[in-house]
């Protein structure tokens, strides 16, 4: 076990864990965050996605020891139900959700991509979502919500 200090959603948090522990378990268990989720543990679906240094990162295959000191943003770090981030607002406006379990992957992958590629067209956005899985088939609404956000919140 070792003490590791993380910066999560703007707050410093120190945990005492096995340094090989995937970041996901530290976020969801030690820090009791609901946003990042275990979907596959293999980096294949996106449910565990967080943003680190502007990149969408799969926290289920990222050892916690490798992210000490970096700013980590989870889905709850973007906005609140009362004051959602514009991309979260776009998902609310488009009702682009069925079960909602995949949203960390969908929202954070899209945000990280659009922050770097603000002028991306719909095809580029879709390609950027290549490793992200929604099993409910809400794809059409999700892509619409992402495009709405990319265009400044207007559909």
């Amino acid at each position, binding site marked *: *076990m070792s003490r590791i200090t993380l910066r999560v959603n703007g707050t410093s948090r120190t945990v005492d*864990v*096995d340094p090989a*522990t*995937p970041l996901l*378990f530290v976020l969801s*268990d*030690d820090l*009791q*965050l*609901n*946003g990042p*989720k*275990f*979907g*596959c*543990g*293999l980096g*294949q*679906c996106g*449910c565990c996605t967080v943003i680190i240094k502007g990149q969408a990162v799969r926290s289920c295959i990222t050892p916690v020891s490798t992210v000490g000191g970096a700013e980590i943003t*989870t*889905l*709850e770090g*973007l906005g*609140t*139900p009362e004051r*959602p*981030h514009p991309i*979260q607002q776009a*998902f*609310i406006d488009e*009702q682009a*959700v*069925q*079960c*909602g*379990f*995949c*949203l*960390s992957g*969908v*929202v954070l992958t899209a945000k990280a991509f659009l922050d770097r590629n603000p002028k991306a067209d719909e095809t580029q956005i*879709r390609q*950027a*979502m*290549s*490793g*992200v*899985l*929604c*099993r*409910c*088939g*809400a*794809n*059409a*609404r*999700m*892509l619409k919500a992402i495009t709405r956000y990319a265009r400044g919140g207007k559909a």
Partner: protein
Amino acid sequence: MNRRTFLAQSGALVVSFGAARAAVQFGLEPAVAAQRLNGASSRDLDGWIAIKADGSITAFTGKCELGHGLYTAQTQLIAEELCVPFNRVTLIQCDTALTPDQGTTSGAQSHPTNFNNADLALAGATAREALLSIAAQRLGVPAGQLSVKDGVVSVASDASKRVSYGELIGGRRFDLTLNPNARRKPPAEWTVLGTPVPRVEIPAMATGRFEYVHNVRVPGMLHGAVVRPPFANPSLTAVDARSVEGMPGVVQVVVKKEFVGVVAEKPWQAIQAARQLKARWAVGAPLEPHQNLHERLRSQTPTRDTRTVDSGDVDAALGSAANVVRATYLYPYQMHGSVGTACAVADVQGEKATIWAASQAVWPLRSSTAQVLGLRPEDVHVIFRQGPGCYGINGADTVAYDAALLSQAVGKPVRVQLTRSDEMAWENYGVACLIDQRAAVDRSGTIVAWDHESWIPSRGGRPGANAPGNLVTGTLAGFAPAAFQARSPAPAPTTFANNSNAVPSYVTGTVNGRAGGTGTIASQRVLTHGLRSAFFTGPLRSPERLQNTFAHESFIDEIAAELRVDPVEYRLRHLRDPRLIAVVTAAAKAANWTSRPSPRPSIPRAGVSSGRGMSCVLYEGDNGYCAMVAEVDVNQDTGAVTVRRLVIANDSGPISNPDGLRNQLEGGALQGVSRTLLEEVTWDDQKITSVDWRTYKPLYLDAAIPRIEIVLLNRPDMPACGAGETSVTVTAGALANAIFDATGARLRQVPFTPARVQAALASRRL
């Protein structure tokens, strides 16, 4: 918290009731009642609705949110019936200490059950009439002179005479049974129901606050991981607990018969210990090779045979027909493959247990978990918490047993979340099947007889109240799957029921002189052979209905093509149900369908060719009408199919929430595309080999998806039907028919992989 405490704290007082008591009211044995899909429900109004002193309303439902918008729709229903704003209603769902027993939330039965003149809707109507009646006494005018708005009853002619719900009943019981004659609010007067109210949970979900079952945290909670057998037909020979001795955080190795698990302080520790634990298993009988699956089904014994319809003259009609058309259709095992693996939290303390689970069936789960733990059902409390989309029985119930067994062993609360491979290798798959179709066609080109024979393997399924062995954990813990009961030949049908859509839409469905079907063909036989499956199976979104509809809707198209008739026109020629005709016509119109036979004229020999296909169904024979037109591009060089456009017409009776309905139809259609083009469970001679998203690859978010256009046929004059499984049921047929239209190649085996498309292209007749 029990119901009494909950309601005391929430300011309303309601007596609790149990399944057994409710069952007795219905004159049923409790065990029988608990097995019924729709549960024993409750006739006690106070079991459904409580009104607090401030006029706010708490409603209790036994049908849960699965990501399909039902929580919001049920809240709309209660707000509507009680004439209050949407946000004044709080809905409590699926908690065995709090809510009515409505059995399982499945089979698109929530709308039929709760939105017609029974159960939740009837409770709302009964409560409104009761409040009006009390108000009439209080205000000294006949109830007919009263009106209600926002939970305030006033005299129509003198609005100063008014009284609120809170003043009328706040915090007190109704002491009434549901009134079967209570008048529902007519759809023409709806202001909340029937409108696109945004889903209640979405802001919390989109901002990462929503509490799924995965986020339930109980003080002192430990974490468990299970060790599933590495083979499909295993037997456990030894577990060496010393192999994990000294690993950090490990609390206990748990073995119960063949169930093996590890409890640790943290989730990662539990997963690592389960990986390291040395458990030895003997390899059982080898599995039949995957590629031989369908070939074997036809000769497999024993069988359980069912005739759904049989006019008795099919063989004669086939023997004397001008033309007999034949085709065989194959469907693979497929997975629920929920995006998150299943999770549950259990706290078993001595004789009492509390389970948090994403089960679609909290009341049956309560009974079957009690059996697994050796407790009394009344000492088990199951609380529903939402999980990832489940589409049938995913791992939510089996993982509840896992958590319960581990918690019982250590005497502390335990959370278990399955690994991806443990869930995929051992879930209750959607069934594979083989379907033979034969049709007799007369000289005018009309179908005069339809013969359907199918072979469908199954094992286990929903555990109901008393068959925990229907799930992997129950089997490992020593309970057998429900016994296979051979029966051959099939008895004659006694009543018409088309729950599995085994009966095609084009026959009369006549049983005992009554025509229950939607079509015109009088000579008909539908024979199903149930078989033993090597793998666990269970309901997967549109169980058997999807498979059968793929076969029926492909076959009608094949016949139309052989006769050189437009496939929409040919369907309409054999349909008589006006609502099914209406959705077919509406979808064709919205798609700008031009009448001509399939395949299309002048198909290019190579490169991309485009086509369109139709498919339709009356889901479950009585529970929602849907027709779909698919437009596809087929790359004839690679065999790749791209779905360009899906036009869906749907009639599920009165629409509760048009946006929620659209969301369901869209999602069902895309799930249908994924399953039709991509999904198939595979295995080798010992084990399942579809164990992650590389070996079972569905549609990802980068896939080119079709434009989806939806025509909603609102039928406020009709009973409410289900809508969660209509579009998924018709998708495979629509795609097969569109591919045929584009290329002249007929795909009769799902999934339509590029290799299968290329094989069909190679054998086409052009």
